[in-house]
């Protein structure tokens, strides 16, 4: 390593604030660049999966209603 101590690393002979702020800002932007599309993609995937589940549940309930309602319909039918 080039520096002798941790405080020398932070201070960098007076240039520490400049160097460290430049690196900190760059790191923050890089993290944001990577995280942003990952979060967006995850949200879109979750929404799509929820939509599929909702549709499947609706289809299942329609199917069970059709099967379950046949006898009652016969019972409710007006007597001739």
């Amino acid at each position, binding site marked *: 390593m080039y520096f002798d101590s941790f405080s020398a*690393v932070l201070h960098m002979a007076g240039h520490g604030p400049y160097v460290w702020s430049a690196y900190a800002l760059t790191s923050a932007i890089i993290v944001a660049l990577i995280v942003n599309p990952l979060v967006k993609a995850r949200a879109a995937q979750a929404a799509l999966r929820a939509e599929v589940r909702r549709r499947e549940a609706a289809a299942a309930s329609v199917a069970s209603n059709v099967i379950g309602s046949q006898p009652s319909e016969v019972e409710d039918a007006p007597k001739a």
Partner: protein
Amino acid sequence: MWSIVHKMGSPPWFYRFASTLAKWLLPIAVAALTVGAVWGLLYAPVDFRQGNSYRIIFIHVPAAVVSLAGYYVMAFAGLVSLVWKIKMADTAMRAVAPVGAALTFIALVTGAIWGKPTWGTWWVWDARITSMLILLFLYLGVIALFEAYDNKAAAAKACAVLSLVGTVNIPIIYKSVDWWYSLHQPASIKFTGESAIDASMLYPLLLNIGAFYCLFVLVVVLNMRAELLQTHRQSAWLEKELT
């Protein structure tokens, strides 16, 4: 050759390709960026004239280099979208714009921070710096222009034209330090002839440039993938992909 082009233009194929590529590229990019930063900050020797402030070079130059290369990628995607009406090229063009803008912003701000202890000023209307500021406006312009249109096909066309016209700025940025020699120093790395930088500083710099290229490809691919998930949420192939 053409089969690859056809595959690239197919959303289902590209979605799978992007997911796999991102899985590999994410750890590579993060590792390269970390090693590059630690090398540049702690292990590279100090510059005899600029002192430690020169360590900013390890992020400033890679960000600037990739922001310029990225503009060509965006303009090329715009050309493909304009001429062959390939939807995926339009997606690629818009995926590049925010990454390019962020990298140009990094180059400008780290340059300003570096300028203060070295030149004694944060900002100067030097040709290199001013043309980089125009590059930032071009990237932001593409983003804003797309949002300004309700008709997204017209928006894509306008963005493609803007990005193509903007390419005239790139050679000006490259050449600005030679044409109008003022405060900004000329390039230290040369493809032909000997570089004006010692190997102990050159190697970490090259590693960082490579790391920023990895980052660029990674974020563009992630942006395109997120965009596909948004625009194809009604598509059967995506449903099959997720379940």
